[in-house]
């Protein structure tokens, strides 16, 4: 039991929160970066290798396109259906291979990315599916390559829903980052468990909740701002652009 009347209590709390927040931001930040770098192309490939997509026939082979699409779809579904706590443990050998250890904040980035990538890839897929095929046709009529279509049409046109999807993704990463305390990943979740739960400090628990809440609120506000900024250009009365983007749930 920690004594709140102890003169060292508040500075101690502050110190612990500061370190915890730093670790959380580090884990979430790097995991988010990895998620964007891998999840965005994954989502693009997922949607473009579908029948009728611009990558329907990679290297001229329709069969190859179908295989790539099926495999990625399967991997994404698998990644999204395994509960995080199990995924984290199951990935230990892989984590050790990449990071050298499976303990600590850096090691926690691997399972965090692994759970967020398929999630974000689906968000990207859904966002791009909403892009009017007429735009792709227009670009093709101008002599666009497949790369042009992806980089100049599909991704820019789907940017607004993708940003909202990214904000949902980052909130999930923050959620899961609280769980990596179980592999000594550190972070705010770890603070809540070690101080709030194991040492019955309600103040620690409440402080952690407030900090996480504030982080999520700030990120959400930033995402909404940018999503609106890009969406304001596309207030077109076409109903297809109005569909919801946050219909996916994490396992």
């Amino acid at each position, binding site marked *: 039991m920690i004594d709140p009347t102890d003169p060292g209590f508040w500075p101690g709390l502050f110190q612990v929160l500061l370190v915890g927040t730093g670790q959380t931001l580090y884990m979430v930040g790097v995991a988010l970066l990895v998620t964007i770098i891998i999840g965005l192309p994954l989502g693009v490939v997922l949607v473009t290798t579908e029948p009728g997509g611009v990558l329907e026939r990679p290297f001229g082979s329709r069969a190859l396109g179908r295989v790539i699409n099926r495999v990625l779809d399967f991997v994404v579904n698998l990644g999204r259906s395994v509960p995080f706590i199990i995924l984290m443990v199951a990935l230990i050998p892989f984590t050790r291979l990449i990071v050298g250890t499976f303990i600590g904040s850096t090691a926690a980035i691997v399972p965090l990315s692994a759970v967020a990538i398929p999630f974000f890839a689906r968000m990207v897929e859904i966002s791009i599916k909403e892009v*009017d095929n*007429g735009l792709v046709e227009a*670009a093709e*009529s*101008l*002599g666009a*390559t497949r790369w042009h279509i992806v980089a100049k049409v599909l991704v820019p046109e789907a940017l607004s829903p993708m940003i909202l999807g990214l904000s949902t993704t980052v909130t999930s990463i923050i959620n899961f980052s609280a769980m990596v305390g179980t592999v000594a990943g550190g972070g705010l979740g770890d603070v809540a468990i070690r101080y709030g739960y194991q040492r019955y400090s309600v103040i620690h628990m409440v402080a952690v909740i407030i900090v996480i809440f504030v982080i999520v609120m700030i990120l959400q506000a930033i995402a909404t701002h940018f999503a609106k900024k890009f969406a*304001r250009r596309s207030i077109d009365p076409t109903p297809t652009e109005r569909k919801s983007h946050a219909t996916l749930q994490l396992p």
Partner: protein
Amino acid sequence: MITLSSVSKSFGRADSPVVALDAVSLEVARGEIFGVVGQSGAGKSTLIRTVNLLERPDSGTVTVDGRELTALGDTDLRAARRSIGMIFQHFNLLSSRTVRGNVELALEIAGVHSKERARRSSEILDLVGLADKAAAYPSQLSGGQKQRVGIARALASQPSVLLSDEASSALDPETTRSILQLIKTINAELGLTVLLITHEMDVVKTICDSAALLESGRIVEGGRLVDLISTPGSRLAHELFPLGEVVATPGATVIDITFSGGTADRPVIAQLARTHGLDVSILGAVIETIGGSQAGRTRLELPGSAAENEAAIADLRSQNLLVEVVA
């Protein structure tokens, strides 16, 4: 300039295909405005999409400006498409880009240097009358303005052919006129060959030099408008001069007389009354400017049966008038 020869295209499963185009052959001369008319579902959209191979035909060849597109590989096809501009019914502008950005998209794809892009896009926006809207986003524009951006984008890479896929169908009548006028101006000033599809006869009347009628994936008739209007039984000509249903009075003959070119200014009815002593009634008349010259069709009722009026009809025909007995 554009030659389709025996182009066929079906959709759906192999065992129950939906035939969109059935051995369509079409010839569009350099510098003309050619309209393909047809009901929805006739295969118009598929037809125009085969010209730049957005839709690859199952069989047949497509030749544009002397290049057989159906024989080209991907890279050459992309290069060839840059000389074929296309505009769309729903404009298909990128909402994430400004007006200028949309025009520059065409130039980026064509690999034009950024300074040159800015210069060329300004020039083209000037041409379509949107210089003051360069920084606006498509959502801030009216339908007519959006289509002007579409036209500017299609013209950016200096094509020799413009394809128009129902470009004016989503617009109100007045805007339609201004867009058609713009297409005509482009055709005249830049010497662009235009192939358009439409379900509105008015569009053909207003700007086309030639037209073809597409029905169930087949070209039923086609040719220069000036020739079509003097072709007996031409359905396109009938569509151009809609006189409505024939209301026949028993014991009378109803004839349609088509005037064109040199015959338009002759006092035909007065002559008919004078020479043959007939009490002519006018049931209907349409005068249009087609292909730059006056043409029209008049529906007359003559007393007596067709046999009794044979001499009068023969007289009219001898004056190079197209006379059709309709009742």
